[in-house]
């Protein structure tokens, strides 16, 4: 990320941002001001997102894509306009964006569509998505379980083999392991930015390796889209998954981007109402994408809330926000790195990383670290962060993680670091 001072948020802008988040005003644990450093798990919501969802229920609530009454029309318009806003936010066309329950479901949607293609559903158009015993799926050691387990399951169902890119001691994807991508590779699934180490993946290099052998690429963009300008077309990936709740939007909604011709070739996964064209007692024809993949009543209010979140971030400006967060991340890394007995997992300098910083404290279990910080009103994540293989690779069982959000301040990072520095003493570690 290249940044210049004038691109970052000013103090006044940051104060205005904080005022947009009602939850930040509350206290926790006997009156401690809340210091929320867990945005990588889920983000807090600005008032405009909460208002947008409420306004939908107050004034426009109806089922979408069915019924011809005025409310149904307004609700359908709101739902499709939300899709346009969120799609534009990541640089894709709205008919290439499928709403899902969350990013996990988005990844599973691709895995199950490939599974269905593998038994001939959607043939012949779906042939490019079919996998069998001669094929391989490639993931990385850095993946969240959501971008690992669905591929393990796809391989178990189809007989395909699962291979993976390794990560280095500093948590970077090891480009010397790119040779696991071969003519047998059907799909490469990787994270854009690790939810543990914060490391941004070398997407360009991985996409080039995949293209060279005709493999598809799926990007888990959950951690990148909320914090960086992301243009999925420019990244040239075939699929991408991300979620609303990590980017200031509501829970209960995520999205799958798929290249148009791939979505058109994909057989459906969840089937039932709304996603059909003609249904007889013996057979059914399916709607074009994205509707083909949106069976049943949809999460309309959440889509409207997510639209408001995307608009809020776009108004702040993602380049300015990324520059602001890069500045905060550098400060967070400086503070954590210089505490005795604390080791950062992953890159300890701010290049090519986001503001999720995982660390271990010598002689103190992450749960205990989190407990002491919680008593001071500081919310961080502890555990394996749904990335057990990555922790195993980095030689630890679990870790603590502080992650910044749009509303994080330098003063909050300093407060966090001061309390972190006292944890070892509390547990009697010299």
């Amino acid at each position: 990320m290249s940044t210049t001072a004038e691109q970052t948020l000013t103090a006044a802008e940051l104060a205005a941002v904080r005022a947009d988040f009602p939850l930040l005003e509350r206290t926790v644990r006997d009156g401690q001001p809340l210091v929320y450093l867990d945005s990588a798990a889920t983000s807090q919501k600005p008032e405009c997102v909460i208002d947008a969802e409420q306004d939908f229920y107050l004034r426009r609530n109806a089922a979408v894509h069915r019924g011809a009454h005025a409310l149904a029309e307004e609700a359908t318009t709101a739902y499709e306009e939300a899709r346009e806003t969120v799609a534009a936010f990541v640089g894709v066309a709205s008919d290439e964006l499928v709403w899902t329950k969350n990013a996990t479901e988005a990844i599973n949607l691709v895995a199950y569509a490939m599974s269905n293609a593998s038994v001939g559903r959607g043939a012949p158009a779906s042939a490019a998505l079919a996998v069998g015993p001669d094929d391989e799926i490639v993931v990385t050691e850095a993946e969240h379980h959501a971008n690992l387990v669905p591929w393990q399951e796809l391989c178990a169902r189809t007989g395909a083999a699962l291979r993976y890119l390794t990560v280095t001691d500093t948590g970077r994807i090891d480009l010397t392991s790119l040779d696991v991508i071969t003519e047998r590779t059907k799909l490469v699934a990787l994270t854009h930015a690790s939810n543990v180490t914060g490391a941004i993946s070398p997407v360009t290099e991985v996409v080039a390796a995949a293209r060279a052998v005709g493999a598809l690429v799926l990007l888990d963009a959950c951690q990148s889209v909320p914090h960086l300008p992301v243009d999925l077309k420019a990244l040239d990936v075939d699929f991408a998954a991300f979620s609303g709740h990590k980017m200031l939007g509501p829970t209960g909604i995520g999205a799958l981007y798929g290249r148009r011709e791939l979505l058109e070739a994909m057989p459906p996964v969840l089937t039932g109402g709304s996603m059909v064209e003609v249904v007889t007692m013996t057979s059914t024809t399916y709607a074009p994408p994205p509707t083909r993949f949106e069976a049943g009543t949809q999460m309309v209010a959440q889509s409207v809330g997510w639209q408001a979140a995307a608009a809020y971030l776009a108004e702040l400006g993602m380049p300015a926000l990324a520059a602001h967060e890069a500045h905060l991340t550098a400060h967070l890394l400086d503070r954590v790195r210089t505490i005795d007995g604390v080791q950062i997992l992953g890159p300890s300098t701010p290049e090519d990383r986001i503001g999720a910083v995982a660390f271990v404290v010598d002689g103190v279990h992450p749960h205990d670290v989190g407990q002491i910080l919680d008593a001071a009103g500081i919310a961080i994540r502890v555990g394996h962060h749904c990335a057990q293989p990555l922790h195993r690779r980095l030689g630890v069982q679990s870790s603590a993680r502080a992650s910044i959000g749009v509303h994080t301040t330098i003063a909050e990072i300093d407060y966090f670091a001061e309390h972190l520095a006292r944890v070892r003493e509390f547990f009697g570690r010299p």
Partner: protein
Amino acid sequence: MNDAMTQLYQQVILDHARERHGYGLVTGHAGESFQVNPTCGDEIRLRVHLDTTGPAPLLERVSWEGMGCSISQASASVLTDLVRGVSVAQADELAETFRELMNSRGRSLSSAKDEMLGDAAAFTGVAQYPARIKCALLGWMALRDALAHALTQAPPAEEKNGMNNDD
């Protein structure tokens, strides 16, 4: 450090977390259990050693290994001391009383029960933190499971304890 934390992390707990009693697996056991807490990856392998020479089996000793937070490690260590030489029925009663303490939301139990729990009563504060209760219970769940295996002569099972994952 604030009062809430010194209430939670009683000196007994900090001491046992640093010097864990019964740590190190011993052979000749009658039953074994392996428990994990998928939320944080904490795990324990615990063995029970029975004295079956008398009319009712006595819990001669417990040995264990594991990794986890200070609460889980101290709880297993305190447990080791508490159940040494008690009958299987008494061990079960201790485990049940400790479970009751964990469900007490931080209120003390009756003085008789408190006395029965000895050092384990120091975990009262844990019950105020729902996310930590399973840490304190991990060793006790392993004890009950290991005893069940010992008494039914069933082979030790490698199983999860049914706790839910976080996300």
